[in-house]
């Protein structure tokens, strides 16, 4: 700048390049501060304690192996008996001899706990970090999120003639604002099916729901469903996403 000022004082009519740059810099306002606080890249968290599920795009036959020629193990409808989108838990993936992609899935089926489905029959993957454990011996339910218990509640389960089935299942849908008080204000459908009520109209699926008889909880009083006090099912609905694995021990 001093050199530029000196050149101007000596009678030069043309500004020097340095003087021009200096003037321009002075005339340009400072840039505005960005409003979005964009921080460091967000790394993908570890997948421990996570489960993937996928909705069914269409009715499909589950196979014993990842091949269209493998024996059928179960036929799945695109909708649950309640009319919601049917879904499966994603366990593994493999390609068949022709390069087709197959997904090994946990199924809502009495005949087979798992089976292979063509990837094209499934919608997008979803991820949950929750796990629901039903302890039939202690008549308690525990919901875990990322491995930590976030809700514990007493429950009622099936009586001796209609026991709640043990095994690995999952939460299939959530029903709200339905008519009737016997199921309480909220009900979850699961993939578990009663082993004794095989002729039940909608397939004998086990639900998790509230009740209009809270005095029976804890107890062994139901047809297989898992009943909670209404205050507990209302807590559960805020914490339990569809697709959560359900372990009944």
């Amino acid at each position, binding site marked *: 700048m001093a050199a530029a000022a000196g050149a101007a004082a000596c009678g030069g009519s043309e500004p020097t390049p340095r003087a021009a740059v200096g003037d321009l810099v002075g005339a340009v306002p400072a840039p505005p501060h960005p409003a979005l*606080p*964009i921080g460091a890249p967000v790394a993908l968290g570890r997948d421990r304690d996570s489960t993937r599920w996928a909705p069914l795009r269409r009715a499909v036959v589950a196979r014993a192996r990842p091949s269209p020629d493998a024996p059928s193990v179960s036929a799945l409808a695109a909708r649950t008996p*309640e009319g919601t989108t049917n879904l499966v838990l994603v366990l593994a993936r493999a390609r068949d001899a022709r390069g087709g992609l197959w997904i090994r899935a946990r199924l809502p089926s009495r005949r087979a706990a798992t089976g292979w489905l063509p990837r094209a029959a499934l919608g997008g993957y979803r991820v949950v970090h929750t796990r629901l454990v039903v302890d039939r011996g202690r008549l308690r339910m525990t919901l875990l999120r990322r491995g930590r218990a976030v809700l514990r509640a007493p429950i009622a389960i099936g009586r001796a003639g209609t026991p709640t089935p043990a095994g690995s299942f999952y939460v299939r849908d959530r029903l709200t604002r339905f008519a009737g008080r016997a199921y309480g204000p909220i009900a979850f459908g699961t993939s578990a099916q009663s082993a004794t009520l095989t002729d039940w109209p909608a397939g004998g*699926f086990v639900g998790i729901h509230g009740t209009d008889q809270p005095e029976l909880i804890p107890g062994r009083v139901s*047809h297989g*469903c898992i009943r909670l006090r209404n205050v507990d099912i209302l807590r559960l609905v805020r914490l339990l996403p569809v697709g959560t694995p359900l372990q009944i021990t």
Partner: protein
Amino acid sequence: MDDLRLEHLDRDGALAEAIAALHGHTRTDLLRGAVAGSAALLAVCAAPARAAARDRDVAILNFALTLEELQAAFYTEVERNKVLRGDLREQATVVGGHERAHVRAFREVLGSRAAKRPRFDFGGATEGSGAFRRTAVAFEDLAVAAYKGQAPRIRSREYLASALAIHSVEARHAAWIRRLAGKSPVTGPFDDALTRRETSRIVARTQFISTTSTTRRSPRFTG
């Protein structure tokens, strides 16, 4: 934009909804233009006009958020599927981290006005390296063109500064994945923006955003 072959996008119209919100605010522009000739009327309408500008900025930010959610979910899913190797895997990991950071920033600024996160269905696009590469090129080109189309419409200088900062990052992502796909990182001396009509046409062909049904039917469990 010749790489945009997104044959499965936007099944439930979440993107279309975001775009419709932008269309809706165009009517506000027209109203403001009609009253611009009257100084007195303009003074009366100044406050609503500022509010309308704020609303339009929010709509644009939500549109950008939806695109960022789409990209973040795409890279997250392909990373979880563990189907990529080498340079492609590095690209997906790095870019996924950026897209998730963008989502977090938009959600932080928008707060309760942020659009609900859509559900995504990428079909086979995240199940193999070839499909991933093609889709990633299309995504990044789409994001660059979409930001370019909306940036001039942003009223807040602070939001515009943020949009430009993200836009150049998206352009770098596009160049990176184009190089990995064997395409020229630069398609020409001048990039076109994506207009709303062009965006709508792409959205109409897409099904990457999906939904699952709900019901009010009574339970049919064993009880």
